C-alpha cells in the first residue's frame, strides 16, 4: 500500500458463538487512524437475569455464560456469594475447587493452542488442515484435552456445564477412588504437554513487542487461580472488593461490551501473559523449568508468545492437578454450613483467558438485588486494539490477505472466544477511495 492510499480492513460480524466479534481497521498514509474491535458479549443479559434470583442459583446460572469457561463463572460467582455471606471454604474442599479449575484450564488452553492458534503459526487455514500434516500433534492435543474433560466430569459432575459446585463447597465430594482414576491419564497428558511446549516454542514469532499494564491475581504461595490480590505491573495491589475503585467500565458506541480501564491510566491486559509475567516464580516445577528454558526474557512482551505461555500453563495445571489428587482425602462433609442474610460480596478468579470479576448485593433472604460481572474479554478489548494500533503501521505494505490474517492472529493471541468468532467470520477487506481519488486495486 502506498502512503497516499487509505485501507480499511473489515472482518464482518457473524452472530454464531459466545463472544461474537468483528474488526474494523482504517489506515491512511501508513498510519492507523481507527481500530474498532466490536464484541457482543452476553453477560449484560445475565446480570439482569440474576436480579431477583436466589444467590444460591448464581453459580449455575452464570456457568451458562460461556461454553468453554463454565467453571470460571462458577468459581467467581461462588466466591463472591460466599464473601457476601461470610462463608470460608477450607481444605480439602478448597483444593477440590482448584482441581476443578485445573481441568478447565487444561481444556480451554488445549483447545486454543491446538485448534485456534497453532494453525496460524504453521500456515494452515484451520485445525482441520493442520491435522492432515500434523496428525500426531493433533492427537496429542485431543488426549490432553480429554484428561482435562475427565477432571471436570469427575469433580464437576459432568463434562459440559458442571453442576456440582455450590455455595459452601460441593453438592457431593467425589470419593478418593474416583479421583484417583484421573491420575494415570493426567500423568500421560503431562508428558504430552511438555512435548507441546517444545513444539510451540519452535514456531516463528512475528517481531513485535508491547508492554501494556499487566493485571493478574497474586497469591503468596500459589500460581493464581481461585483467589489472591489483584496486582499490576504498575503497582496496583488491591483486594477484590476494591476492584470498582481501581477499574472503570466505559461505554464505547461501536461495541456492546464495555471497555475496562484502569482509572486515570487506560487499557490493561489480563490473561496468560499478565499472569505469567506477574507470577512466574510460582509455577510448578516442570512448568517453571520449561519457562526458564524457552522464555529467557524477564518480562515477555510479545503477545504472539502467549501460545508458549498457554502451553506452559497447561503443564502447570496438570502438575497441580496431580499434586492435589495424590494428597486428596474426602471431606467429612461436601460443604460448610451457612445461613442466608443480607450482604455484599465480590470475587476475582483467573479464568483461562484472564480475570473474571463478580460482585453481588443480597437481600435478607439471599435474593440478588444487584449483580455485576466483568469478563476477561471486555477487560482485554482495549488492549487488543492497542496491539493492532502498534502492530500494523510497520506492516502496512503487506498484501491485504496477509494483513487481515495478521490482525486475526493478533486478536487470537489474547482471547479464545473472540478467536473463535473471528476465525470463522467471512472476511472482507474493503479498499475505500482515499482522499486523493486513488482506488486500491
Amino acid at each position, binding site marked *: 500500500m502506498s502512503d497516499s492510499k487509505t485501507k480499511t480492513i473489515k472482518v464482518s460480524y457473524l452472530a454464531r458463538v459466545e463472544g461474537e466479534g468483528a474488526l474494523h481497521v482504517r489506515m491512511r498514509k501508513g498510519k492507523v487512524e481507527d481500530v474498532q474491535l466490536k464484541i457482543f458479549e452476553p453477560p449484560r*443479559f445475565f446480570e439482569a*437475569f440474576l436480579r431477583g434470583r436466589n444467590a444460591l442459583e448464581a453459580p449455575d446460572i452464570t456457568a*451458562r455464560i460461556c*461454553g*468453554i469457561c463454565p467453571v470460571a463463572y462458577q468459581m467467581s460467582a461462588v466466591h463472591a456469594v460466599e464473601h457476601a455471606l461470610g462463608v470460608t471454604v477450607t481444605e480439602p474442599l478448597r483444593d477440590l475447587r482448584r482441581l476443578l479449575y485445573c481441568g478447565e484450564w487444561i481444556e480451554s488452553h488445549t483447545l486454543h493452542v491446538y485448534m485456534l492458534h497453532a494453525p496460524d503459526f504453521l500456515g494452515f487455514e484451520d485445525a482441520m488442515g493442520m491435522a492432515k500434516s500434523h496428525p500426531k500433534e*493433533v492427537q496429542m492435543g485431543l488426549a490432553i484435552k480429554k484428561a482435562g474433560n475427565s477432571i471436570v466430569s469427575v469433580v464437576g459432575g459432568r463434562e459440559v456445564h458442571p453442576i456440582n459446585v455450590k455455595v459452601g463447597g460441593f453438592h457431593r465430594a467425589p470419593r478418593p477412588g474416583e479421583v484417583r482414576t484421573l491420575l494415570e491419564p493426567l500423568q500421560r497428558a503431562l508428558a504430552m504437554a511438555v512435548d507441546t511446549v517444545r513444539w510451540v516454542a519452535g514456531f516463528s514469532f512475528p517481531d513485535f513487542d508491547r508492554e501494556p499494564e499487566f493485571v493478574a491475581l497474586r497469591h503468596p504461595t500459589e500460581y493464581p487461580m481461585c483467589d489472591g490480590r489483584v496486582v499490576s505491573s504498575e503497582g496496583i495491589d488491591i483486594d477484590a472488593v476494591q476492584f470498582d475503585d481501581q477499574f472503570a467500565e466505559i461505554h464505547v458506541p461501536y461495541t456492546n461490551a464495555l471497555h475496562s480501564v484502569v482509572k486515570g491510566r487506560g487499557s490493561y491486559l489480563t490473561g496468560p501473559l499478565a499472569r505469567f509475567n506477574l507470577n512466574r516464580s510460582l509455577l510448578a516445577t516442570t512448568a517453571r523449568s520449561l519457562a526458564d528454558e524457552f522464555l529467557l526474557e524477564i518480562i515477555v512482551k510479545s503477545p504472539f508468545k502467549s501460545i508458549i505461555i498457554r502451553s506452559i500453563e497447561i503443564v502447570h495445571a496438570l502438575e497441580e492437578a496431580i499434586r492435589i489428587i495424590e494428597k486428596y482425602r474426602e471431606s467429612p462433609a461436601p460443604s460448610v454450613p451457612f445461613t442466608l442474610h443480607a450482604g455484599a460480596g465480590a470475587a476475582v478468579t483467573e479464568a483461562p483467558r484472564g480475570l473474571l470479576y463478580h460482585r453481588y448485593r443480597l437481600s435478607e433472604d439471599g435474593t440478588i438485588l444487584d449483580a455485576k460481572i466483568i469478563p476477561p474479554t471486555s477487560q482485554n478489548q482495549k488492549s487488543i486494539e492497542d496491539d493492532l494500533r502498534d502492530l500494523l503501521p510497520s506492516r502496512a505494505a503487506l498484501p491485504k490477505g496477509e494483513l487481515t490474517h495478521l490482525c486475526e492472529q493478533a486478536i487470537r493471541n489474547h482471547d*479464545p472466544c473472540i478467536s473463535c*468468532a473471528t476465525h470463522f467470520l467471512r472476511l472482507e477487506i474493503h479498499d475505500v477511495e482515499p482522499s486523493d481519488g486513488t482506488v486500491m486495486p
Partner: protein
Amino acid sequence: MNESPETAETLVIGIGNDFRGDDAAGLVAARALRSRSLSGRTSFEVCESNGSAFSLMDLWRGRGRVVVIDALDVGSRPGGDILILDGLQGPLPQDAFVLSTHAFGLKEAIDLSSTLSGLPKELIIVGIVGKQFAMGDPLSAELAHVVQRMVSEWPRCLEAYVPAINHVHGSKSLKENGNHA
C-alpha cells in the same frame, strides 16, 4: 443403510444449548428418546452434548452406528423441517450447523475425525430446522411439537430417509414427505 437404525449398539447424541431457543431441539429430542429407552419401548444409548468437536469425537470414536440430532439454521427452509444427512458422505452444508459452542462443532468433528481415522461406521445426522436462536429464549412451540412427533415415530422416521444427499436443498425432508405434516 442395511439394518434398522435402532439397535442396542446405536448411540444417539442430542446436541444443543437449552438457553438458545430452537438450538435446544437436539437436547429435548435426546431426553425424550432416553425416556422411551428407559421405558423399554426402544433400546439404544442416548447422550447429550453441547456439540463441541472434541466431545463428539470422543463420543463416537470406535462406534458402529451413531445418530446425531442437532438444530439447523437454514434460512431457505421452513422452521420444523427435518433433514436427514449421511455424515460419512460429506461435505456437510458449510453454515447450517452454526450453533455449536465456539464454532468447533459437528462439521469440524466429522472433518477432523475423518482425517484422524476416528469416524464411526455409520453416522446419521438428523437436522431440525430452527428459526430463533436468541440467548435466553426457550425452544419454540413449533419445534417442540416437531420433536415430539419425531420421537413418537422413532426410528421409523430414520429408516425411510437414510441415506440422503448432503446438500441442504437436496436433502430429504420428513415434513415435505408427509411424515411430519
